[in-house]
Every structure is written in structure tokens, then in C-alpha cells.
């Protein structure tokens, strides 16, 4: 879960890291501009990089100029997102730019501190073009970072004199923040050395572990709560997000109702493999309520592009009878006429089958294009039949 720059800097300030005194301005008004010293930098708040090239970073020498430039940034679209806020900070004169980050190294299963004298640029490029300029220090989980370790690192960045101790404090603070708030990534790029001998965090990135938010009520107090990841959402994706359903629109004609995310990914592969085109990715696994199951079916069947539905349920933690009930209720209430080819196996399979059979008897017309296979039907045959059904609908 990524934070906006202004949020990350508020978190940084709590750990004593040297951020500039900035103000955040949104469409509500410009009063806050009275609080800053000019000249200023205006930075549109977005998750996606390349803000400079997109004109999201502007400079202003006066309040009037700032107001004008902010107006031009607010409402711009960047990486599929409208810019809703800008961060306004005093402009500083930069002498050198450094790079600092702490991340979870998923290869070594340890924490990793990375530093570079080449700050202010894309660090992945530095890593590939000048790997010797990117220094890496691994830390065991739970290990203390002592000041001397941070100092050695700061010294390696070419900091000396008073800047050595300032740099040591920044590295210690960044690591403590990383550990203290369960971060996946805590990054400063650039950490600037100014011409008046200060060390300043100019840009800050924080990626939090959503699954650890419960133990950081202070973040909630700061208005930082779980949120959807980056990317422009389609209308259907927005509906799905509101309902708490992991869902991504694709451009095919087969609605996919696959159970868990793992088989959802496999199902998309298999549909393509056999010449079909999936209309979506979805995670309908775990043990969703019947209401949620029906909302999932609705997402698929209300999509005009969808010609047929592929459905699968392998009852492990979830129950087939619950799933069958939800399908039946949705069909009876919404009377969809699109073909649905499905397979149901596992926990409470027998009970589920009875529910389907009974519904078929009661509503033969509604269930004419609906088939629910059992354990003995290979899932790929179900997929192939769905593809045939979709083609027949054209």
C-alpha cells in the first residue's frame, strides 16, 4: 500500500527525518499558500513516476504565480489518475543528490539497506548501468541497526563533518521507520545536500504492509488507511471495488467465475489456450457470502460483452451447497439468458447437486442454457464447452 509523497513525509517527520515545512493544497482553496516562504516547488501528488516530464512539478516565485501554477496542475491526469492535491514546499539549492532505501529482500528474506551517491534519478537504471554505485547492506530480521553501522554507510555516501552525523541520523531514522511501521519499502530519492550545508528529504516513498495496519492506529489517525492500488479503474472495476471483489476487466467475451485467484489466473490461460477470450479476471474464492456470490455473477452477466459464463467451484474451505444456492437464487431473480457452463466438486457436493437439480425441475426454461458438471468431468472440457457456447451466441 503506497503512500502519497505528502503522507510519506508526514510519517517521516514523526521519526525526526528532515523534511521541508510544506503545505498540501487541494481544490478546496489556496489559503495555505500564505504559510510558505517563496520561491516554492509545487508537486502534483501521484503514485506513478515521471512527474517532472508530465508537468506535475512546477516552480513559483510568488503567491500569485504559485496559485496559477497549482491551478494548472490540479485536475491534470497522470498514469490514469486525476491529480487531486499538490504539495508546496520551499525551494532549496541542491549541491548533491543521494539515494537511500530500506526494503524487504524477498530473495534473502532479510531487510536490505541500499544507498547510492547517484540520487535523484531512476535507481533501477543506476543498478543496471553502474551497479558499483549502488551499495547494499543486508540486515537480519529483528537485528538492531547501531549508529556505527549507519555512520559507516553515511561515510560511504561521501558525507563528512556535520553532514556525517546528520546522515547517520537519517539512515537510523529511515530504518526505524521501516521497522516501526511494517514497511515493504521506505525510500528517499533524492536525499539532498543543499548549498547551505543541510541534508533534506526531497522525495519520499513508503509502501506499507496492509496486513499489518491493525497495529498502527497512529497511521489511521493521520488519515492513512487501506486503499486500492494504482491504476485507472473501469466503471465495472469501481463497482467491484466497492463490493470488495477483486476484479479486472479484460476485452474478451467469456465471463470467468473461477473460485480462488490462483485458479482464476489458470482459467484465463486455459481459455486463451483453447481459443476463447476471457472477459475478466476475478477472485471468487475463499468462503464468500451468498450475497457476494450473487454480486459476482451480476458483474459478469450485466456486462454486454459477455456471451457465456465459465464457472468453477472446488469446495475446500467453502461449501458447494452455499454456492449452488447463490447461483439458483441469482438465476431465478435475474433471469439471465446467457449460457453458463460450470463445474462443482468438493465439500458438500452432493447437497449442492440436489439444489441445482431441484431448480432445474422447477424452472426448466431459466436453466436451459445452464450446465453444472461434477467431479468426473475434466475442467478443461468445461472450458471448451464454454468457448463453444460463446461462439454459438454470436
Amino acid at each position, binding site marked *: 500500500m503506497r503512500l502519497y509523497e505528502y503522507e510519506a513525509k508526514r510519517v517521516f517527520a514523526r521519526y525526526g527525518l528532515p523534511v521541508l515545512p510544506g503545505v498540501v493544497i487541494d481544490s478546496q482553496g489556496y489559503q495555505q499558500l500564505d504559510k510558505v516562504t517563496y520561491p516554492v516547488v509545487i508537486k502534483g501528488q501521484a503514485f506513478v513516476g515521471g512527474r517532472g516530464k508530465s508537468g506535475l512539478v512546477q516552480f513559483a516565485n510568488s503567491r500569485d504565480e504559485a496559485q496559477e501554477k497549482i491551478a494548472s496542475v490540479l485536475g491534470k491526469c497522470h498514469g490514469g489518475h486525476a491529480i487531486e492535491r499538490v504539495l508546496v514546499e520551499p525551494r532549496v539549492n541542491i549541491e548533491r543528490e543521494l539515494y537511500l532505501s530500506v526494503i524487504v529482500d*524477498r530473495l534473502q528474506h532479510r531487510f536490505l539497506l541500499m544507498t547510492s551517491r547517484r540520487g535523484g534519478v531512476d535507481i533501477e537504471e543506476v543498478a543496471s548501468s553502474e551497479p558499483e554505485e549502488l551499495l547494499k547492506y543486508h540486515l537480519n530480521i529483528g537485528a538492531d541497526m547501531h549508529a556505527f553501522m549507519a555512520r559507516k554507510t553515511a561515510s560511504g555516501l561521501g558525507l563528512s563533518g556535520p553532514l556525517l552525523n546528520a546522515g547517520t541520523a537519517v539512515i537510523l531514522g529511515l530504518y526505524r521507520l521501516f521497522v516501526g511501521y511494517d514497511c515493504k519499502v521506505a525510500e528517499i530519492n533524492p536525499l539532498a545536500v543543499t548549498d547551505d550545508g543541510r541534508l533534506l528529504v526531497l522525495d519520499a516513498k513508503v509502501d506499507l504492509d496492509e496486513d499489518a495496519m491493525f497495529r498502527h492506529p497512529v497511521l489511521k489517525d493521520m488519515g492513512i488507511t487501506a486503499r486500492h492500488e494504482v491504476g485507472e479503474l473501469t466503471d465495472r472495476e469501481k463497482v467491484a471495488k466497492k463490493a470488495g471483489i477483486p476484479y479486472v476487466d479484460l476485452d474478451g467475451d467469456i465471463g470467468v467465475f473461477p473460485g480462488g485467484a490462483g485458479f482464476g*489466473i489458470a482459467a484465463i490461460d486455459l481459455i*486463451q489456450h483453447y481459443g476463447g477470450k476471457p472477459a475478466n479476471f476475478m477472485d471468487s474464492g475463499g468462503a464468500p457470502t451468498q450475497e457476494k456470490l450473487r454480486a459476482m455473477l451480476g458483474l459478469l452477466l450485466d456486462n454486454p460483452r459477455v456471451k457465456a459464463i465459465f464457472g468453477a467451484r472446488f469446495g*475446500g474451505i467453502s461449501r458447494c451447497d452455499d454456492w449452488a444456492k447463490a447461483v439458483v437464487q441469482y438465476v431465478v431473480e435475474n433471469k439471465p439468458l446467457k449460457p453458463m457452463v460450470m463445474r462443482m466438486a468438493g465439500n458438500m457436493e452432493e447437497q449442492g447437486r440436489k439444489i441445482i437439480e431441484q431448480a432445474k425441475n422447477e424452472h426448466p426454461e431459466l436453466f436451459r442454457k445452464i450446465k453444472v458438471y461434477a467431479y468426473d468431468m*475434466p*475442467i478443461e472440457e468445461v472450458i471448451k464447452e464454454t468457448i463453444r457456447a460463446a461462439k454459438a451466441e454470436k
Partner: protein
Amino acid sequence: MAIIVDKNTATIVQGVTGTNAALHTKFMLKYGTKIVGGVTPGKGGQHVEDVPVYDTVRDCIDENPEATVTSIWVPPRFAKDAILEAIDTGMKSIVVITERIPIHDMLYARQAAKERGVMIIGGNTPGVISPGKALIGMLPKIAFQSGRIGTVARSGAVTYYIANSLNLAGLGESTSVGLGGDPILGTNFEDVLRLFEKDSETDAVVMAGEIGGVYEELAAPYIGEMSKPVVAYITGKAAPQGKRLGHAGAIVEGNMGTAASKIKALKDNGALIAETLSEIPVLLKEALGSVIG
């Protein structure tokens, strides 16, 4: 000998009084798994399905010293402590059903386990089954038949469909292992492949990976060293690409993580690549030739 759990493996259930854990304790017992005790702090003295509940793992082990495998069903915020407690009491394998464990917690527990030579499966694993012998977790028994193929997968449902596909082709499993869906896992493909390689009841292995993460690539070199055939099934070839977000983690993980990079690494090391579920038993039969009756 199957791997991890066998007919005679004595196991315990941590968090046994939770709704889900209690339900699956019933299923596990029905399947024949030997559960000697459960643990829920503050509920010592109760029973779940005739299984005695203890306050601490230590109490449980003091009365049931034969237990070597535990499964963890506690809420995510207590998972780290439950795993550390299991390690402290000398458990050999810890099957972590709990999902969405904080990443730093799991890293901590994983490190503690490695230091003590303890195996953690999961978090967010559907479990481990040695068909016809024992089941730990919540895998649906209907999917699995006894046989001589070892399977290991990241996704629970993919595990079931692979088993289904094998069974429909007349094959069965020695043991089936779910690695788990959490971002940090205690055990990766290579760890399980090493166990299957040594297991006298396993003739060949199926590993099912998916887009994201690096565990498939990391396991590839070991496949080159194995004497037993490995069929790999990697999903996510057609998955929508998320927008590329520059992030520091990519520096470490490089170009790993796509279906293509995984398939290439595995193929280069001699794994047989199955494009579909139904290809899996075909490739296995080819590789094993007349070995299979």
C-alpha cells in the same frame, strides 16, 4: 514414507477452538490424521471433537511427546507467536493455515525456524495431504487419490485441479503440498523438491507455479540435479500486466516474476512444461515410461 505427514505422524492444532479450525479438525480426524491435542490459550481443559485442548504447546507436548507436526489456525496477529511457540517446543514441521500474516512477522518467524532447522509450510497454505494416510489443513479429500506422484503448488485450487487431472488419468499422489499464498513463505519449491527427491514412495513430481515472486526461478537449478522427472505447470501467461511501477524491490528481483521467465528457467534445467492441466498426466506417463503400471 510420504513426505511431511504420514499415517503415524502425531500432530497438534494451534487455535483449535476457532470455528474454521474446529470444523477442519473434524475433517482431519475423519480422514485418519492422528491429532493428539489442540492449543488455545485460556481454553485449556476443553475438548474439540474429543481432542483435548491445552493452554500452551508446552503443556500439550508434555502430555503428548510424540507430536512432531503442528498446524496453525490462529488469527494473523497471533501467528508469529504461535509459530515461535511451536519452534520453541521442538516441532519439526509447522503448517501455517493462517493467511495475511504481517510480512515482518513472517520474516521473523521464518528466520527463527531456519536457525533451528524447522520446516514452516505457508502461510496461507491449504495444507498438506498424503492421500489415504493423513491430511493436515483444509484440502478437500475428494480431489486426492493415493499414488506415486508428488505435487507442490502455490495455489490451493490449482492443487485440487492437478490432483483431479491426475486421478482422471489413473494416477495418484504420494503427498500433495500447498506452499501457500502469502507474500513470504516458510518453504519454497526447492525445499519440497528435495524432500520428494529423497522419498521412496515418489516417482515423479509436479510443481505448479504462477506469475509473481521468484520461488520458481530459484528452484530451477536444483531440478537440473534431480534424478526424478519434474513436470512444471506455470499459470499467468495470459494474465493482464499490471502497470509497471518503478520500485526498489525490482533491483533485487530483477527480471524474475513473469510466467515467461519462470518457464524459461525451468525448461533450461530440464523440467517438462505442461501447457494445460490435461497435459500433466500425459507428460508424466511419457517421462516414467513403463514404471507406471
